[in-house]
């Protein structure tokens, strides 16, 4: 028997590439191959947005995140507010009420104090609004050129009660898939600020704490909220793929229902990006049983952040682990995780 193999050799990777930070398949492989073998334990292996540990009846949720965004300041926020929202949201997605934050700052020699002051002030405002206390911190300074202005790590601790425990693995066939707001704003705001692109309508990052939305879901539908995720790095497509894999369900999206603002769609067309893979920092996706879906949408819409909450699809038993989309034109396509970074197209 002859086997036909394309003789162009696959490029072997012997070091870290930028794609390993994309939130796509390369990121997943980095964690799976380089970190989990050393650190594996029952808590870490859940790979949720936050770890949940039981300390005698009370559940603690713990999450950590590092922020390396460029530019440091962008329409709708800065790296400081983002560092609070990102970690607070990771806790909220596990159903925890965020309580405390610790922050580490890597400062680059030469960072102007007025920039630093604005970042720290925004961070404090964001923490106040999210009702979390910053209770520990650390600073380090590195030589010019060894960091990009400032890097911030935040670690958050929250409390979780046993009556509310959304988790990716709890999503079930028959669940409705709901998003709380317009998609793609954060990633495109950063991209346009970075590339110095100007569009007719300014695109503002959606960076916000999602805790009020989660509170409303908890009050209205309680533990019927099967899974929550904030589709940050890697976008909605990656978040849905992770849930589909964790719960061994299929997801069917309705392209016509996706809330993609016109300016985001236009920017994506121009830049050659797919909005499904663009980062969000103030949107959540929820899996809720069909019978409670209307109540969940109403609960989200009762808060300003969730005003445009909408059903975008459903969980099914077919094609477990796979996300497919019914296109506006009447066809179907697979919405896979990206291998690495989205690469802009030639033409």
């Amino acid at each position, binding site marked *: 028997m002859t*086997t*036909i*193999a*394309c*003789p*162009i*050799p*696959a*490029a*072997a*990777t012997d*070091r*870290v*590439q*930028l*794609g390993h930070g994309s939130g796509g*398949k*390369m990121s997943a492989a980095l964690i799976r191959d380089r970190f989990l073998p050393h650190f594996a334990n029952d808590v870490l292996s859940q790979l949720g947005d936050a770890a949940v540990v039981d300390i005698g009846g009370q559940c603690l949720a713990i999450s950590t995140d590092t922020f390396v965004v460029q530019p440091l300041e962008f329409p709708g926020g800065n790296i400081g507010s983002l560092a609070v929202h990102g970690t607070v949201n990771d806790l909220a997605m596990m159903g925890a009420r965020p309580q405390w934050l610790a922050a580490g700052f890597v400062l680059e020699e030469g960072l102007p104090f007025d920039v630093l002051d604005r970042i720290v002030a925004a961070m404090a405002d964001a923490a106040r609004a999210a009702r979390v206390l910053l209770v520990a911190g650390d600073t380090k300074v590195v030589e010019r050129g060894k960091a990009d202005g400032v890097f911030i790590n935040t670690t958050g601790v929250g409390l979780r009660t046993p009556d509310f425990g959304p988790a990716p693995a709890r999503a079930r066939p028959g669940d409705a898939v709901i998003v709380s707001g317009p998609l793609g704003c954060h990633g495109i705001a950063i991209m346009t600020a970075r*590339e110095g692109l100007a569009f007719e309508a300014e695109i503002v990052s959606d960076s916000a704490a999602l805790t009020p939305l989660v509170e409303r879901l908890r009050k209205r539908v309680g533990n019927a909220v099967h899974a929550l995720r904030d589709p940050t790095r890697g976008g909605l497509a990656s978040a849905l793929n992770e849930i589909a894999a964790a719960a061994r369900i299929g997801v069917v999206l309705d392209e*016509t229902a996706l809330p993609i603002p*016109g300016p985001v*769609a*236009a920017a994506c*067309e121009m*830049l*050659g990006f797919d909005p499904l893979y663009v980062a969000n920092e103030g949107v959540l996706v929820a899996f809720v049983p069909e019978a409670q879906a209307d109540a969940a949408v109403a609960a989200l819409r009762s808060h300003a952040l969730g005003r445009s909450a909408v059903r975008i699809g459903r969980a099914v038993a*077919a*094609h477990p682990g*796979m996300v*497919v989309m019914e*296109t*506006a*034109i*009447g*066809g*179907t*396509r*697979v919405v*896979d995780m*990206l*291998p*690495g970074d989205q*690469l*802009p*197209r*030639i*033409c």
Partner: protein
Amino acid sequence: MKYLSEYRDGRVARALVAEIKAAATRRWVLMEVCGGQTHTIVKQGLDEMLGDVIEMVHGPGCPVCVTPLEQIDKALALAARPDVIFTSFGDMLRVPGSDCDLQQIRARGGAVRIVYSPLDALELARKTPDKQVVFFAVGFETTAPANAMAVWRAKELGVDNFSVLVSHVTVPPAMTALLAAPDNRVQGFLAAGHVCTVMGWTEYEPIAAKYKVPIVVTGFEPLDILEGMLLAVRQLEEGRHEVENQYVRSVRRDGNQPAQDLVSRVFELVDRSWRGIGPIPRSGLGLREEFAAFDAEKRFDLAGIHTTEPAECRAGDVLRGVLKPFDCPAFGKACTPEHPLGAPMVSSEGACAAYYNYGRFRSAV
């Protein structure tokens, strides 16, 4: 979105599908030339909706896919030099060369930057006079005018640390080569709308006449492509073989004259190898003698790099439309977007990547 959502209307699409089915008395084989069209077709499931009356074969119009391995290896050698900032359109970064890709060169310390326009690369050269800035000038007639403009401006401004690694190709010689091949099955073409926006369609008239094939200049949105298919099917059913223009909102018969003038002042026709297809005479663009100073292949010593195209690679059959990606034994197994074996799996315009990203569901159920 204005000027886009109108061309993605499901109701109109269904009407066009019905019209195509009513017009066809048999199954016709059409080729869409451009990779952007391939993606729309597979992403929207158009081939599936019309499978009983049209077989779509996916043409060689993916600039990333057809850039020869030797040029990729030259790009990698340039990018690895400490004195060079290598600039490129984004999707060239993951194309495998003989032993690595540009992303890996960057991880090893090479300065590799994504730019959206060659003029950005020229600007970078002006801002960093102590570095050599090289731009990877690939693509069809669509990208040629902007690339020509960058070289023209570099000469005008005397930016002597700017150069281009040229691997431009043109569509009509590739179409002719496909039609002349003994195993050709293609009965009609959807020509690439954006190439024709620049070049017009006069070059296609002798091809349509000689090979008796309808050629429909077609856009990139779902309704464009469905309408292009309808026009091609009608011609085939009526025994006509003309050049028709579906993409009237963008294309004129004579194209964009100033852009063509600029291209012909900076570039001239040269023989070019196509990855997976092989050499096609007078199918590429190279810099004219008076711009030779901006030719990276002349500025840097790349003479030692000679890579022969692996003759047995199936990517060539995919690019010629003889093999469907699903039918390649490596598809989705040894060859995936994370570990591409051939270029069509890399580029978002490549036929294999289009099938992998959007079509696996269909093959699975």
